[in-house]
């Protein structure tokens, strides 16, 4: 009894410490920086120094200046397209994985995720070489007789950003879709089979609806990662592929207009949070019913 009595307070201390840490870490490393960003977005800049007096000027400029909203909108459209392409390519791959048995399934999944271990910049460099006028893609298309001359369609424009981002982000789409497909109980599929449904009917009525949560979170993952990226557009976007990320980057990198950059980030953050909420909502609605 006395032993138990002496350990209990220290255990309580420990659990209290763990609780505090669990709350403190996200607060210090996520909420506080976000709050600082939000505060900065209400400052302004004059002659290279930040003026710490609240103003709505940055937001007014974002909504009234003719360049920001169109670029913002185009970037959202671009990233939705990237998400759609990634889903269309990742779904069959994930589905194929679930049809594999035992060890093969996870070995192949690991292989598909290996690109994530490589440096992001090196991957972009490599893809840019492949897409270039003298690159592998053009050489292959010309050799196959599909193109007569190398084409500039694939690099330094919006197409290039779309292709590159899709390629880079596919692993992030495969994983959640695979997990949701794997979670579908085999008994349901057998029941469907027993009741005389064809393969296609089983897929459309059982597998697809039950995997939609995975699709939704995959889509929101890809969208969020794509919209925050400035490096890919900067490196393969050329003159027509101007995205919101590039504007944002220029506010910090070259313009030294941190407050305006912060305001643009807040706009971006709102879109990102919406995307995550939508992804999560669809993810929950059906997934938990089984």
């Amino acid at each position, binding site marked *: 009894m006395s032993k138990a009595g002496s350990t209990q307070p220290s255990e309580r201390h420990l659990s209290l410490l763990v609780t505090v840490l669990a709350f403190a870490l996200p607060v210090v490393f996520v909420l506080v920086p976000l709050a600082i960003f939000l505060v900065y977005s209400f400052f302004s800049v004059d002659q290279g120094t930040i003026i710490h007096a609240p103003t709505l000027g940055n937001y007014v400029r974002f909504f009234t200046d003719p360049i920001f909203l*169109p670029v913002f909108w185009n970037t959202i459209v671009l990233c939705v397209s990237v998400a759609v392409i990634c889903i269309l390519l990742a779904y069959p791959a994930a589905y194929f994985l679930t049809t594999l048995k035992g060890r093969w399934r996870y070995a192949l999944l690991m292989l598909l995720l290996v690109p994530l271990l490589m440096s992001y910049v090196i991957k972009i460099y490599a893809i840019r070489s492949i897409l270039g006028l*003298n690159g592998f893609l053009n050489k292959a298309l010309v050799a196959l007789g599909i193109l007569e001359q190398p084409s500039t369609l694939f690099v330094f424009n919006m197409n290039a950003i779309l292709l590159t981002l899709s390629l880079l982000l596919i692993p992030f789409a495969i994983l959640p879709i695979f997990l949701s497909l794997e979670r579908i109980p085999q008994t349901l599929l057998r029941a469907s089979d027993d009741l005389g449904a064809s393969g296609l009917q089983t897929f459309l009525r059982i597998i697809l609806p039950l995997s939609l949560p995975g699709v939704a979170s995959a889509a929101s993952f890809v969208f969020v990662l794509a919209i925050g990226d400035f490096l890919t557009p900067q490196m393969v976007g050329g*003159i027509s592929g101007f995205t919101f990320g590039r504007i944002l980057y220029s506010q910090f990198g070259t313009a030294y207009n941190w407050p305006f950059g912060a305001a643009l980030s807040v706009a971006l953050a709102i879109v990102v949070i919406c995307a995550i909420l939508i992804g999560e909502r669809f993810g929950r609605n059906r997934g938990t019913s089984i």
Partner: protein
Amino acid sequence: MGLKRLFLKMATVGLGIGLMTSAALAANLRVLAWDGYADADWVKDFTAATGIGVDVVFIGSDDEIWAKIKGSEGQDFDVFAVNTAQLQRYIKADLVSPIDVTKLPNQKEVLPRFRDLSTVSGVTKDGKVYGIPFCFDSIGLIYDTDKVKPAPTSMSVLWDPAYRGKILAYDNGEHNFSFTALTLGYKDPFNLSAEQMAAVKAKLVELKRNVLSFYTTADEAQQIYQNNDVALIWANYGQQQVKALQKIGAHVAYVNPSEGALAWLDNWVISKGVRDNAAAEKWIDFMLSKKVSGGLSERTGFGNTVVESSSAGSNDKLVWLNNVEDPLRRSDMWNEVKATP
């Protein structure tokens, strides 16, 4: 026991060495410079010739120089290297001392364009000399000798529709506004009126439509050159970039445009906290010797102020970079150019 004595001995020796070096440091000339400006063999030669020891600290960016000099109010260094665009703010902040040019015999032997320092923008103030130019490079034009014929003489070739989609430009609003202003014939490309800014912006939108992509690093430009059909490169990295391209077998040449090439110019300056002014003057004079200046060009590819080099012929017009009227405005307008469909 023996071990203890050994430690004691080591500590004494260590203390002795520490005292010696700190004594030596006190008398040494303290130099702050970019890599390549104070190579070990030159430092050795200087010490052999003058008996003055030298401690060199290398820096990697303009901001770092400012932080080091401003941070100690100039007390931590005797001599440092800074470019003309930056120098004025050091003068304004009272961090540098005027230099007596008569104490620098080698300054009389420099190339004609650097002989009269009052004609070099940015190195003097109120008739006093604050910077001694010694190293420069132009921001010229690299062209593919197989694809661009005849050889271009002006940046206006970048607007030639014949090279549409074969041009690499640099992703920087400040420089792009300056060089386009020169191409349009404006006198002071660093102080543009609102009207001139608008004209330059319109011209840059046209340029953008002729360009394949905007690059940021020399390495990046080279990679794009290798994988695409590139005829012209606006060469932010000057001679270094040409040399790197030639090394990979590219048939390229370099030209400084006739309307004037933007160019950076680094100067030796003496800090406010200089301990031994005569030693600092000797260092600068030594750097202006034919041997060191010529060697600098050989090793780095940059131009020097003493011996003719490939960076710029004596007839090439160079426009030394200066502070621009409003960097923020230029950066915003550059974004507008990029966002224009």
